[in-house]
């Protein structure tokens, strides 16, 4: 508990976590230094009879230092952050070989449509699963995110993925799962009465298993079920 992030399971979880811990250390140091100084001053300069406070209106030198130091620190954090941001969300960040999955959020469920064996969305072999997202490990996936009526937010904590699904927009969000297993998909944007139970499961298959799952699932008999 506390400040430790839960285990990450996507290719860029490590980058995000590293930034988080960097900021945690920097702000942690700032917190300790400032609060310790505050407590020390409160103790050291508590009122005592017959004593007068020092009559001083400021110090240009001190103020320049404590303007410049935080400015440099936050600009450095900003530059490091924008590098990671561009890798994850930048204009050309979606890997070209990413597997497309169309996810439509609606009150209060997630519908994932898969490209099927031909790898193309919008063709006859597409199939849909409800509240269950299946992805392969070790291959980038790009989720084409849509919403039917209100805003939802596609949140897979273990993958460090969160992206709002906005009605009228298709928002691509990509990730690469690293570890096969079961994960949870949550809605992170208040979307009405059933928001709290808009929960989905995420299954990460090892790559060969995923092929098998897709072939089974994509066969015509199964595809016809909603």
């Amino acid at each position: 508990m506390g400040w430790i992030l839960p285990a990450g399971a996507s290719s860029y979880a490590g980058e995000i976590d590293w930034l988080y811990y960097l900021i945690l250390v920097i702000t942690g140091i700032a917190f300790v230094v400032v609060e310790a100084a505050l407590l020390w001053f409160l103790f050291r300069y508590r009122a005592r009879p017959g004593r007068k406070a020092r009559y001083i209106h400021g110090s240009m030198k001190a103020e320049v230092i404590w303007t410049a130091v935080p400015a440099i620190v936050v600009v450095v954090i900003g530059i490091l952050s924008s590098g990671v941001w561009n890798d994850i969300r930048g204009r050309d960040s979606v890997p070209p070989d990413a597997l497309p999955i169309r996810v439509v959020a609606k009150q209060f469920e997630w519908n994932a449509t898969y490209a099927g064996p031909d790898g193309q969305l919008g063709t006859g072999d597409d199939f849909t699963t409800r509240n269950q997202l299946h992805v392969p490990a070790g291959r980038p996936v790009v989720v084409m995110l849509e919403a039917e009526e209100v805003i939802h937010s596609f949140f897979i904590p273990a993958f460090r993925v969160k992206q709002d699904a906005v009605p009228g927009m298709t928002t691509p969000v990509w990730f690469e799962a690293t570890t096969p297993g079961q994960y949870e998909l949550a809605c992170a944007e208040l979307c009405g009465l059933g928001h709290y139970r808009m929960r989905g499961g995420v299954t990460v298959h090892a790559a060969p298993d995923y092929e098998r799952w897709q072939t089974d699932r994509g066969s015509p008999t199964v595809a016809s079920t909603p």
Partner: protein
Amino acid sequence: MTTSARVGEQRIEAAVHAPAHGHHPPFLRRYIFSTDHKIIGIQFLVMSLFFLLVGGTLAMVMRWQLGFPGQAMPGGGVLPETMAPGGVVLPEFYNSLVTMHGTFMVFFAIMPLLVGVFGNFLIPLKIGAPDMAFPRINMASFWIAVPAGLIMVAGFFVEGGAAAAGWTSYAPLSASPEHSGVSLGQVFWCVSLIVLGLSSILGSFNYITTVINMRAPGMTWGRLPLTVWSLFITAILVLLAIPILSGAVIMLLFDQTLGTHFFLPGEGGQPLLWQHLFWFFGHPEVYILILPAMGIVSDILANGARKPIFGYKMMVASIIAIAFLGWIVWGHHMFQSGMNPTLGNSFMISTMLIAVPSAIKVFNWLGTLWQGNIRFTVPMLHAIAFVSMFVIGGLSGVFMASTPVDIYIHDTYFIVAHLHYVLFGGSLFAIFAGISYWYPKMFGRLMSHRWGVAHFWLTFVTYNLVFFPMHALGVGGHMRRIYDPTQYEFLQPLQPINEVISIAAFALFTSQLIFAVNFIGSWFRGERAGDNPWEDNSLEWTVSSPAPHGNFATTPVVYRGPYEYSSPLVEQDFLPQTVKLSTDTPPAASPAGD
């Protein structure tokens, strides 16, 4: 016409509306439909403390459900079937609680407490004016705020319940009753905010005009107390930001009632437009909710430390810098919204930069305490708590400013922790500081020190027990605004934290009883305060307590700034702004209008 003659005219006009010394207008005009800025300030105080109680009560119901999901709430049986049948909170009612807690706290508690109460009560007194520039508009400002509050409360009693789309009211949920299940409640929410917006606008241009035109002779901009500086800059933000909210809310109301589609995508509307408009208002609003608190704390810290405020000019400059930067950071609320990700980088940099003036203020407060002679009065305890809690709220902001980290913590309890460290740990502690500090000038009596200290420590400890663990919930991925966290497997291990938070929240709420008893009891039985119980330099402490109608018997003349504590020129450790030393020469002319 000369400057001083023009000012004189305005003073006379104001004095006509403000009853003169010794003259007692009838009860109704004196206490209910009063044009006296001090009475209006106290009216705002009573109103907003009531809404603080309402907002707090809603939070307690939420905390019950979060700590003990699905269990019958003790005493919950009194609630109707549509809210909590058998005392078990319904999900639709929970969404209303989330929405209305935020709405009441932001618009009807914190904002009027800071701007309505301290803006009204302090500005004329601190600048040496007999009243506001437009006393009747000032009265209208209060009496427009009251129906706005009543309309908001009424939302709970209409079919479908109160608004349930969050205080941020994101469209399309807020605009489409068929998806939110709320129709009239959402309309009431819109109408209430439009009405309240009118009240805020009337108040703000009054403050601006008063500060520019009605300062006493010698009260130059460089001698203005930081409370007045911060309220002045805040009033400018209010005047510019509130019309944007009003415009957006009117569009939302049209979508709900007239069939327009500003924010509904089916007919070509754009949901993100609402978010841009809302946060273009909303981020300046965040600073409306903290700048006056910073001003109040600056004045109380200097007084408690018996030292001049450290770096007065930088303090003023940082208020102005925050107010300016506050306009270009709104996109940081929308990093995960689907907004063009490239914009994320620009908004991240502007957001990071706003940390700089905030840091300057914190260091200057520390500098003020350094080598002081610190008196631990109740207002001072709250002011110190403000500094230490604002540090936490400021530092946690760096996490969400960093766009990649925000991907994970956006819309989680990390944000809830952050915003409460700023709005409760920051603003509300400053409000407690301000109320206990100026209480004697409002009511002529001091609040009890002993009960004040008890209230402070109980509040400080339980407050941290409530909000600090919320960081851990957020780091664990706990989403905001969910009715039942135990629905998710990954949140189940966090449930004990939710229980601890809820129990601490009940203790925090109960602790406020001490404040209520102290506040009401001291009104009648408190120790009588002298004119200047805190040995402060500012002008309001030169008049009797409570401050008389019309404020100053003769227009005060100002010879120095308000922070001349422990000056070597005099024996005592304070030197009021109006004291004329042998070396002082009277100011050539009134500074007003320059």
